[in-house]
């Protein structure tokens, strides 16, 4: 039987997604004042708990302290050794993750709901009463050094760290490059002091996602709501740092045997709290924010210079910046840089056509749907809001902007913020 072919030259009718359902977080407060945001999501019996502390690099008295404090939490606490913590989490198939970035520290637990109680008990102990055992710290720092040595052989890492230094300066927490010797300067006391100051209930926010009922709140109250964990009562002074961008156009880190060079191009802009951020997000998407972007089309699909290129607006708590990143063949490095600037210029000079704008709009609405699709994406979307002290209304503003921005607005934003002359670039590798 041969079947008749359908009409294949026309795309089937599509519906435009103009609004998205954003579940609002329910707010609770535990007895000790710890704010809890809860979002019911998904069909599986899992629970994800995320704790957010203002304890990133921004607040550290010397390099590596923020990261080491956070990552060492699970290496020993008052009631559990490092080995017991690992054994308990693995036995219940749970994941305990501790990670600090430039601004915040995050301690998270992913577990089957039926094992929330025993795993949360461990999380609470490591957050409230870590002991930072000396032997564990030595092993941790030695292994971290080896990891550092590996990472810093990669052109991608070199280009990234020198780019951040060029944007913010070597004395700024977003710009300073970690040194191998920094690993020798961190002691137990540094971690203990930093923990005591920053890992308190009054400086913590908690997000819980997944299958949530009364028993979940009860566990949270029991483990994290007690009077034994409150705060120092002192207000933490937020240190003040200002970016100091280099006046050089290019910083170059040579790696003579490289077959590809890693590139970063961009400038200091602003974060999600700035009114122009959602609009600039649209501009960025057109430029290099998705697979069909202009940079991908030109540098990869037309020229074949690279396996991939993207641009992103990186929102930090105190600043924000644009970065365009790629790894390109050493022999076409200069040509690729020229082509990238050409695309930026085009955004400033020519109005984006309606078909491209419609496509970007619809793509971005699809991305917003995906950002709230299931408990794990929802948790990470909310955490990024909490980090910025924003609430769900932010996404209503994004939806509005995506639906209403015009080609004129886009050109205006590009002219206001994306001037090629103001960009800094970092190249690591070999540029022939």
């Amino acid at each position, binding site marked *: *039987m*041969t*079947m*008749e*072919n*359908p009409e*294949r*030259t026309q*795309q*089937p*009718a*599509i519906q435009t*997604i103009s609004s998205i359902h954003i579940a609002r977080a329910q707010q609770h407060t535990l007895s000790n004042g710890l704010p809890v945001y809860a979002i019911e999501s998904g069909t*599986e019996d*899992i629970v994800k708990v995320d704790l957010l502390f203002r304890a990133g690099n921004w607040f550290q008295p010397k390099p590596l302290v923020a990261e080491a404090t956070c990552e060492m939490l699970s290496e020993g606490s008052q009631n559990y050794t*490092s*080995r017991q*913590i*690992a*054994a308990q*989490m*693995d*036995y*219940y*198939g*749970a994941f305990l993750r501790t990670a600090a970035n430039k601004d915040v520290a995050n301690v998270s637990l*992913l577990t*089957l709901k039926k094992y929330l109680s025993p795993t949360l008990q461990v999380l609470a102990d490591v957050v409230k009463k870590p002991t930072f055992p000396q032997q564990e710290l030595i*092993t941790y720092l*030695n*292994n971290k050094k*080896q990891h550092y040595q*590996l990472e810093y*052989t*990669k*052109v991608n890492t070199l280009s990234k760290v020198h780019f951040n230094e060029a944007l913010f300066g070597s004395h700024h927490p977003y710009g300073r490059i970690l040194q191998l010797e920094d690993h020798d300067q961190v002691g137990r006391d540094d971690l203990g002091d930093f923990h005591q100051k920053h890992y308190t209930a009054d400086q913590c926010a908690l997000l819980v996602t997944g299958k949530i009922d009364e028993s979940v709140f009860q566990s949270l109250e029991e483990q994290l709501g007690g009077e034994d964990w409150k705060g120092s009562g002192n207000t933490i002074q937020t240190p003040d740092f200002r970016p100091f961008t280099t006046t050089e156009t290019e910083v170059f880190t040579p790696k003579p045997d*490289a*077959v*590809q060079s890693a590139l970063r191009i961009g400038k200091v802009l602003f974060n999600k709290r700035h009114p122009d951020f959602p609009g600039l997000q649209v501009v960025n998407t057109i430029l290099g924010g*998705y*697979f*069909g972007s202009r940079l991908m089309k030109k540098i990869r*699909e*037309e020229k*074949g*210079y*690279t*396996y991939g290129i993207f641009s992103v607006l990186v929102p930090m708590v105190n600043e924000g910046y644009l970065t365009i990143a790629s790894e390109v*063949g050493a022999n076409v490095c200069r040509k690729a840089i020229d082509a990238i600037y050409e695309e930026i210029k085009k955004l400033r000079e020519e109005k984006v056509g309606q078909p491209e704008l419609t*496509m970007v709009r*619809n*793509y971005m*609405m*699809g991305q917003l*749907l*995906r950002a709230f*699709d*299931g408990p*794990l994406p929802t948790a990470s979307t909310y955490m990024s809001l909490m980090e910025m002290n924003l609430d769900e209304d932010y996404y209503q503003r994004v939806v509005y902007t995506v639906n209403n921005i015009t080609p004129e607005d886009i050109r205006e934003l590009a002219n206001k913020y994306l001037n090629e002359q103001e960009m800094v670039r970092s190249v690591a*590798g070999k540029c022939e």
Partner: protein
Amino acid sequence: MVDFTKYTLDNGLKVIVHPDASTPIGTVNLLYNVGAKHENPERTGFAHLFEHLMFEGSVHIPSYDTPLQKAGGENNAFTSNDITNYYLTLPVENLETGFWLESDRMLGLNLTEEKIRVQKNVVIEEFNQRYRNQPYGDAMMLLREMAYKVHPYQWSTIGKDISHIEGATGEEVRAFFYRHYAPNNAILTVVGNIEPEKVKEMANRWFGPIPSREIAQKDIPREPVQEEARSREVTRDVPHNVIYKAYHMNDHNHPDYIPADLISDLLANGNSARLYQNLVKGKKMFSNLDAHITGDVDEGLLLISGTLTPNTGMKQGEEALLEELARLKNEPVDEQELQKVKNKVEAVHTYTKTSALHKALNLSYFELLGDANRINTEDQAYQKVTPADVQRVSQKVLDENNCSTLYYYAKAQ
């Protein structure tokens, strides 16, 4: 429980539908039963190059990405030694666009010499980025060619030698398509908030008219049993010495596949695992250790790799590692330790089920192995493994005569 319906169209296309009301997103996954193992040894890397070319426009649709993005969709693909897998997600209201796009490129491509030339460059840059410009980037290639003497798993998906890609002609590329891309060589899986009847209707409309094709039957040679230890030393400009060990194991449908997977978990899954606790934390001979199975359809590998700490000699580290493997062979694993790795398998399966895309991928892959319903029964199969199974399979697999070892030395600074 993942409920699904399954049927085969007249042209041989297998279709699986899993209704999931919890998500506004629809997922379309199309698995083609063609991977690097189906390639001609003189023309390796073709399956992967082809994955790139599938995005370069089809018979009636000049651009794949544009209409998909217009429908709010996103897509990607990957190539392994066994399969090439394409997936897209989009608002479920626009699911039909997914059928339209995927069926048109199954029908035929619209390749020009220029498009082929550019994608060859992109793949060469991918090779440079992933394999040449990364420390230890060639380790897996070296291990494959040591471990496999006849089976095509001896080359990576990127290819044995990049000259194979550089030399690919348009004619060869087109011939590859008609030998491997066909409804009767594919599995279509759809997940989303949609009636199975509606999916059936769309599958029939869009894929039904595509004729089945003659699939190149290639007898893939079975790798003979390895009878003596193999090893190789290399010295490169890398920061640390690393040891790699590759042990042959059973194919994916063999009853000993699951015990081998659990053995890799006992060794290195999570911070409580043996290698981490004893050799990273205890003896401090390694700064990290990893063990995993390649997960191939045919007889794959159980891989162990470890970065040595500066004061540990290569052979000293290897001895300590072999002592740990000997313990698995000589002593039955404690019930509680075995239960731990089984619990983790169960938990990870549950976490995975929160993602429609992962469900679609798993349904397709299990169907390729013979039964999509293994998505629901796999946990029980893991639960049934006994300490005796672990010991027996350890003795069989973790044998040095069954192993290829790569000593990867850092050039003296």
